[in-house]
């Protein structure tokens, strides 16, 4: 993981972080501990997310291939050629076979989609908890404490904002993929084209953003908040 440039190289180790975690009030600790949990969850989700995406690649490639086969097969005018006369229902059989295979690949993708959905839900919940925890305790935490940031520990406000941003991005990305799968049909050329071209659009951006936020919070995550 890339470390944030704002952090000096020698600024590591428990002593430095001790200084940062000088929490003035009990309320602030509560919020920070919730944020700690949330970012831990985000970190876990990110690895799950990446794995799921990687696992989708193979079946997606298959789907693309099968779609091409499906389209070629349905477009082919095989009834008229003499060679296939002994097998009159070959086109139907072939299409059925392709369909079955497609179903299988799609179900594999759907399994991965379920994982993405879980990530989405988990991040959403954590975002909600963190915001709730902050809003409940906000009357007791002075604003300068909320905005206070050190080289190793970001401000509460920033972390909350990042969490919301991550939640938004993940939600959008998941629903984009879901929409593409819904619109997909081997008979519909547009849907297939869309799936091929748009599936991984924005994936890298999402991963980069989340990794960036995680790297800002890397020291904070190493800390134990009591």
């Amino acid at each position, binding site marked *: 993981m890339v470390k944030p440039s704002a952090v000096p190289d020698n600024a590591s180790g428990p002593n430095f972080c001790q200084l940062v975690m000088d929490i003035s009030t009990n309320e602030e600790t509560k919020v920070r501990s919730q944020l700690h949990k949330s970012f831990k969850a985000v970190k876990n989700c990110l690895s799950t997310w990446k794995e799921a995406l990687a696992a989708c690649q193979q079946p997606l490639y298959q789907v693309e291939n099968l779609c091409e086969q499906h389209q070629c097969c349905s477009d082919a005018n095989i009834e008229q050629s003499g060679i296939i006369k002994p097998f009159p229902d070959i086109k139907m059989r072939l299409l059925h076979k392709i369909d079955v295979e497609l179903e299988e690949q799609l179900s594999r993708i759907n399994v991965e989609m379920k994982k993405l959905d879980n990530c989405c839900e988990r991040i959403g919940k954590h975002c909600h908890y963190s*915001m709730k925890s*902050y*809003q409940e305790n*906000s009357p007791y935490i002075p*604003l*300068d404490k*909320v*905005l206070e940031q050190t080289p190793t520990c970001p*401000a509460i*406000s920033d972390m*909350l*904002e990042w969490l*919301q*941003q991550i*939640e*938004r*991005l993940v*939600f*959008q*990305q998941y*629903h*984009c993929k879901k*929409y*593409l799968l819904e619109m997909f049909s081997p008979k519909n050329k547009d849907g297939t084209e*869309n799936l091929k071209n*748009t599936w991984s*659009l*924005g994936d890298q951006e999402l991963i980069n953003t989340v990794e960036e936020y995680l790297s800002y919070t890397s020291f904070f995550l190493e800390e134990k908040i009591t």
Partner: protein
Amino acid sequence: MTEASISSKLEMLVHDDSTGAQRCYLGPREITILNVPLGSFICVVTPTKDYICSLWPSKVRNDGSMIYSKTVCRIKALDNTDSKYRLKPLHVSEGKCIHIDVVCNLSDIARFRKYENLNKKISRICSNCLYKMCVAENFVVDLRHCNLASLCGISKILITKIPSGSLVKVDAEAFIISSHTEIVVDNIRSNEKFNQVSKSTRKLIGGLDDLMQTLEDLIKLPFHHQKQFKQLGTSLPHGILLRGPPGCGKTSLVRHIANNCDAYLIAVNGPEVIGPHPGESEDNLRKLFQHAILAAEEGPCILFIDEIDVLCPKQAKSGGLEESRLTSQLLTLLDDLPADHRLIVIAATNRPSALHPSLRRPGRLDREIMINVPSMAQRREILDLHTQVLPLAEDVDLDWLAEITNGYVGADLAALCHEAAYLALGRFIVKQSERQHIHQEDFLTAFRKHRPSLQKGVEGIVDLKPVLWEQIGGLEDVKQKIKQAVEWPLRHSEAFARMGLPCPRGVLLYGPPGCSKTTLVRAAATACHATFLSLSGAQLYSPFVGSSEKMVAEVFQRARMALPSIIFLDEIDSIVGKRSEGGHRGVQERVLSTLLNEMDGVGIKLDDKMDSQHSRRILEGSIQDVEQHNSKVTTLRRNNLDILVVAATNRPELLDEALTRPGRLDRIIYVPPPDRQARLDILRLFTQKMPLEGVDLMLLSSQTEFYTGADLENLCREAALNALTRDMETTKVTYADFVKALYYNRASLTPESIEKYSRYKSSTFDVSFKIKERKVL
């Protein structure tokens, strides 16, 4: 500190973020003042729009700055009088149900229609797009940066209604959309129409009220009462042709009507369609119609083709293959419009006669509507409208301005007002005065500077040097006659209408040369603010066959456009002679016949006719109701405003009899050489500014018999020059100078020539006497 104090210290920065997150970033000081937790929603109130954003600290933590996202906005401000930026914390609750309009591209609408369970699918997509956003009624959510929305082709979502009781908290001003919020899609609207509606400002149009009503009925009825049309079995009108001179408001009228009828307007200029490659123009036209038909599926749609004469010229004249292809393509497209369409085609042209006739048959452009050059009352309305926003001084008389701006179209009047405002602005800057008003004088200067667009590029328009009646000495009787013939029908048309008098068509002034015939006409034109067109022999004759006649016809057409108008034919004997009996047909004869036809022919060319809207002909035997009867007087008044042909000659005997008969040049006025009293008046006028000494003008006037006005002018000039020759330093003109001048300047008239005119006068006396009898007021 209060909310207001934040705004005074805020330095506004617009945030057009690429993430589309609904956030605004403020400095710590402002957050403390607002006293709400981070992440809560606030409303950013600007003079024109309101935005809903969640509150976050700015990245650099500097006070006094704000960056806000424009994702969720409402165009109408909460408080229009407030010109400052304000921040307002919002009471937010979770919403149970909202109604929305989805805005997407036209092509995507067609795609959406193919879906099964359309509304359910779209509402789910919208729910995902709006997830965790904070919205309120009438706010528009811009989804440009939302990946999911752009994938589905949704560009905006308009929150139309929040049913009462759907909010968890009663006093909430805005609400957050969660996965549990039920979303009802009321309408799917096209991006194009949405933008047009939100952009359109209700610009008013003056002086076209009755026309607007007719057009609105034509457009609204088929759109809103399709069932009744079906029951009656009548087909819907396909198209409307608007015709009228340029600048009279054809385009703005259509825009206004589209706005009133809530129709989507596709405006295209004729030349825009034409492409450089073969077949491209037809393709463009087809695409245009396809787009319009697609848009018409959503709601009423108007396809407006401006300058349609470029697309469909008359075949005979152009002969070009491309034009004929384009014409037939347009005809086919008009014929192929679906039967129950909600599309109406409006075409506009200022040269209806150049249009392909097949385009104007029923079933294509069914209706033709003429927009005329505004009359005085219409000009007054237009001026009222344009001066609404201008700070006018008390001395501005719009009625008078409307009277003098004859021949001005709407665009000219707008330009006039702008010019006046501009002149006034220049004065304010020089004087640095605080009270800024536009005075009558500014309008007058602008009026002198501005030339109405109808008069541009026309032969015969002259820059008239204004002459007042008082500047013409003597000839009281003739002046009175000319006033009767020229001024009265134009200025006192009501009196003419009351007495049932037709207005004279033409006036012939004849008399010896130099007796101020031309000056008299100039004075008449100055007095009645009519359009003044002058034709002379030199202008008219050209080496090309037919072009002289064409020019006469053109001048008459222009004169008809800018009624009331005076056409002045100086030295008419040189323009049109007498028809010879030998059978030789020269250009003079052809011009004469054109002139006779234009003045009093069977009728004028229908396409050139300008008053189709105003004069409703009452057919014999038709039943007239009271309203019609009442309107008759006003109609008469309008009809009275006509072209007046004024001709001048000093050889009246050379004129064709057909020209001098009643109905053409029916007022024949002899402008005699000045008598003794008149000569005295003339001499007084010309010596007004001369330092005379011992000159008896009475004596001089008796000595100058057979001198014309021009001779007398010359005499006075010579006398003054004589005085200067005598002594350069002199300050007086003496009688001796005049005597010397008399010696060298002989009278240009002779008793014989005057005798000739009197003979002619006695021969035509009977005719003019009869007419005179009728015109006594």
